[in-house]
């Protein structure tokens, strides 16, 4: 952590970056994002096991971008998000500097190629709890799954925290806000909530880096991240392509192969 503070201090003092996006203390054990803009404020930075939120969300926000070149305290999923944002032409190499926190030490990564190399060495797996939940769901019958999601999604209040917390949901005009046609009802109710979460999962299929920040952001604790994990998993399994692996990869859902294999179209 001292290493991180020192680095942040140097970068800000030298003017190499204008803002360091990192974690700060919140209520209790919760860590919240902080935006450090001067060298004398680096003591606001904290890094420990509770820092799990994917801060890459802030890299596309106009308010943050207006500050100038950004350095970001990055956990593995943040690095993957940076690559995915780069692949989608949302981020330029010269605008971002990653301070990767890996195995208790800090690594400064400026080039996308370097990030790509580092990411390739990190095992890419969802947490044991999520995996257990996923196995439980896939083992259920269709009816049981429907009942499970109906009960879960009925609790959704459509606060859109899952959308706001997602680094990949950067569209300035989101289809959820579109009212001509009104694809997604504004009110929160069973069918509309199901539709909303289906759209979210479909729009993230092939782009999701499986950080789970959407699920963590949910104020009611609905495991919404499992839907995006599942959609992303489907893309990985069927098209052998994943979100957040490379800064150059094409988006799996905007391309095709003439020999894509399925068995359900008659």
């Amino acid at each position: 952590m001292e290493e991180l503070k020192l680095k942040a201090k140097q970068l800000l003092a030298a003017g190499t970056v204008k803002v360091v996006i990192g974690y700060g203390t919140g209520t209790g054990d919760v860590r919240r994002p902080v935006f450090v803009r001067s060298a004398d404020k680096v003591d606001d930075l904290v890094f420990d096991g509770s820092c799990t939120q994917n801060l890459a969300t802030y890299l596309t926000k106009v308010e943050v971008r207006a500050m100038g070149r950004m350095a970001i305290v990055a956990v593995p999923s943040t690095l993957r998000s940076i690559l995915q944002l780069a692949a989608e032409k949302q981020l330029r190499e010269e605008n971002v500097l990653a301070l990767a926190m890996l195995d208790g030490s800090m690594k400064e990564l400026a080039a996308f190629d370097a990030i790509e190399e580092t990411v390739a060495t990190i095992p890419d797996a969802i947490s044991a709890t999520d995996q257990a939940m996923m196995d439980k769901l896939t083992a259920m019958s269709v009816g049981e799954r429907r009942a499970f999601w109906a009960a879960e999604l009925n609790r959704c209040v459509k606060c859109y925290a899952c959308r706001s917390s997602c680094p990949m949901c950067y569209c300035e005009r989101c289809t959820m806000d579109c009212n001509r046609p009104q694809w997604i009802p504004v009110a929160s109710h069973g069918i509309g909530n199901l539709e909303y979460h289906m759209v979210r999962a479909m729009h993230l299929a092939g782009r999701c880096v499986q950080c789970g920040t959407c699920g963590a952001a949910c104020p009611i604790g609905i495991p919404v991240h499992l839907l995006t994990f599942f959609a992303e998993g489907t893309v990985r399994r069927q098209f052998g392509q994943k979100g957040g692996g490379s800064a150059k990869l094409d988006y799996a859902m905007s391309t095709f192969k003439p020999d894509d294999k399925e068995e359900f179209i008659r």
Partner: protein
Amino acid sequence: MAEQFEPKLTAFVCNWCTYAGADLTGTSRIKYQSNVRVIRLPCTGRIDFMMVLKAFSRGSDGVIISGCHPNDCHYTSGNYHARRRWMVFRDLLDFVGIDLNRITFSWVSAAEGAKWAELVNETTNRVRELGPYQEIQQLAAVGIE
């Protein structure tokens, strides 16, 4: 005897192959069940996955999605894109608990009038057996504004 349940089916078809194919079914005077409402779209690539969800929430008991065979797309690659989308969407539908027996995906060319009749009959019979899609319709009853 109680009246037999007649399902409502929505078919999303492409203008160039399946719509023409369904037209051929008619001009060939092949009879098929009248439970299907055909919605013509320019291409299967135009069939947004939301249309399927909306069809169910607005009272469809089953959905048919059909277009040109691979390599036959009027717009060269619309059906390839659609196929990828369905490959992901179909799995996701299953994951959230939508009954896949209520959805038929197919390629029907402009020359396959008989295949269209067979497809509609088969899907109608299958959905009739399954009964009305109450699970979704009950959910939707609260939400239709």
